[in-house]
């Protein structure tokens, strides 16, 4: 069933917070198994697009389908890595506990996590290189470490689609390398990854698929075909002689 449908299909999606639309009439098909960057200037609606896919924000019009069905029916297939700054890291809990939260969805209401969930969380921590910090209070982690914890929490969900909101924001080069390696590994395993990304320089190196967004959808497709000056100019407004040709 999953192979017939694209990972995500968006039709006529429009979202507005006040009067001004943040996303206008987006049509987007994200094929199964791509590692995709969403790029666009500030205020282009990149985070909003992710939140609309996840049902965090109600759209004014349009529909989102995950493997051919509404998100609500597919929650167990999708994992979300929010922006690091979206939570208060002074919350009284440990790194392991945050990663365990990734298991809550499959547990469902009321049921408590047990040994099996703990084991999964520890494995995810090891994968992101954070095992030694498992008992650390989360406010005592560096920004890059916090980002890895969020990634580990999503890994625990063992989903088919991963939506990530700026996972490289404010992390050091080591963490960036570690994260991109995990993303590439996930794609090898057939997962679909959708990543809000800011650094245009690294798009060709990291991703195989790209979506240009600036309130409207500008273009979407394989990086090698559509990541060019023309689309960058359309998206960012000014002529972008990026390092693509280099």
């Amino acid at each position, binding site marked *: 069933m999953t192979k017939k449908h694209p990972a995500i299909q968006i039709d006529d999606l429009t979202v507005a917070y*006040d009067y001004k639309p943040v996303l206008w009439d987006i049509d987007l098909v994200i094929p199964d198994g791509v590692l995709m960057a969403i790029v666009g200037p500030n205020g282009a609606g990149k985070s909003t697009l992710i*939140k609309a896919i*996840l*049902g*965090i924000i109600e759209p004014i019009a349009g529909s989102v389908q995950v493997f051919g069905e509404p998100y*609500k029916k597919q*929650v*167990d297939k*999708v994992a*979300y890595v*929010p922006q690091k700054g*979206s*939570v*208060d890291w002074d*919350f*009284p*809990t*440990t790194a392991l506990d*945050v990663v365990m*939260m990734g298991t*809550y*969805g499959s*547990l469902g*209401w*009321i*049921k*408590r*996590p047990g040994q099996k969930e703990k084991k999964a969380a520890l494995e995810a921590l090891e994968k992101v290189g954070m095992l030694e910090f498992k008992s650390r*209070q989360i406010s005592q982690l560096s920004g890059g470490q916090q980002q890895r914890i969020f990634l580990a929490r999503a890994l625990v969900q063992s989903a088919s689609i991963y939506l990530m909101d700026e996972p490289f924001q404010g992390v050091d080069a080591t963490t960036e390398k570690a994260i991109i390696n995990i993303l590439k590994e996930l794609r090898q395993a057939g997962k679909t990854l959708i990543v809000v990304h800011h650094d245009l320089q690294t798009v060709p190196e990291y991703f195989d698929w790209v979506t240009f967004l600036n309130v409207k959808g500008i273009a979407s497709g394989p990086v090698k075909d559509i990541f060019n000056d023309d689309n960058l100019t359309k998206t960012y407004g000014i002529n972008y002689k990026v390092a693509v040709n280099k």
Partner: protein
Amino acid sequence: MGLSEFFTDYTLRNITLGTSILGAICGMLGSFAVLRKQSLLGDAISHAALPGIALAFLITGVKDANFILIGALISGLVGTFWIKGIVKRTRLKSDTALGLILSLFFGFGMLLLTFIQKMPNANQAGLDKYLFGQAATLMEEDVWVMAIVTGISLLVLLLFWKELKLLLFDPDYTKTLGFNTRFLDILITTFIVLAIVLGLQTVGVVLMSAMLLAPAAAARQWTNSLGVMIVLASIFGAFSGVFGTAISASQDNLSTGPVIVLVAAAFVIVSFIFSPERGLLFREIRFRRNRRELHLKKTLTFMYHIVKEHDNISRPHAIRILNNFQGYTRKTLNKLEDERFVRIEGNQWSMTQEGFNEAESIYNQLGNKND
């Protein structure tokens, strides 16, 4: 007043039990309010309950504590969901919405109270005790109601522990996992409103929010675990109730509500200063100790640079030349001598082998980090 009277005197026993249960439930649910950054919500809710108290009396015509409780509950809930509605539907920020609803409801409540006081049948005198609370009016039934509500909220908390924790930390993520965050939000908010309404008779509209926040704020200082924090907050709250009642009972003319709040405030002050990890005192001590150590290290590496230029590391140098170095004080030099890193003779200093090794290792460590 002896200790035994606490448990034999009927009124006093009720008050002590009532205030300690109240403190416990407030500490428990207050932890959620504090961690959701809704500290002021408690204040708005308690003030919003006032018109409900007055209306309950006007409608039923009797001063029955249960009717009044229900009136307060309804009006508190209405106020709370209006606040949430305003924040969601307008561009007003939550502090504005809180202030607006708080003063609007409180003003309306005061208006009704004045109106009631001017009414011919005088048996209503005493509704204004809900402003500052009067623990002495606590009956055994009231204590039972408190105990039952506390029991239910504890049960709900244990049942939905995982979901509520998730909601506190990351509401958006909670939603993406398929949990109904609206239900969870209404659940926890309703219990917070219940706890506040329960305390109105004892502590009063004006001071109630302190009961909710103080034990939780104090508890947060001592632990990094949500579970421990909630248990501690309940204990602090319960002790505030017991101590506050004891203090006010031992003196004439000390009303119980304010004394309880002051005891809770004392818990906060002590916790803010003396808690080992987050407390001001130990933070200041750690800060100073670190600075001192850094001074020593900086001075030692500065001296190391001078010494390195010469073949003989223990060759004496004039102390005067250290004056060029900004972090240098005579005290750090003496400290270095105590550590046997340097020797001082008259106006001259020389480095020991130990000091040289130490400086070299500090230098290498910091040097490597910069690469």
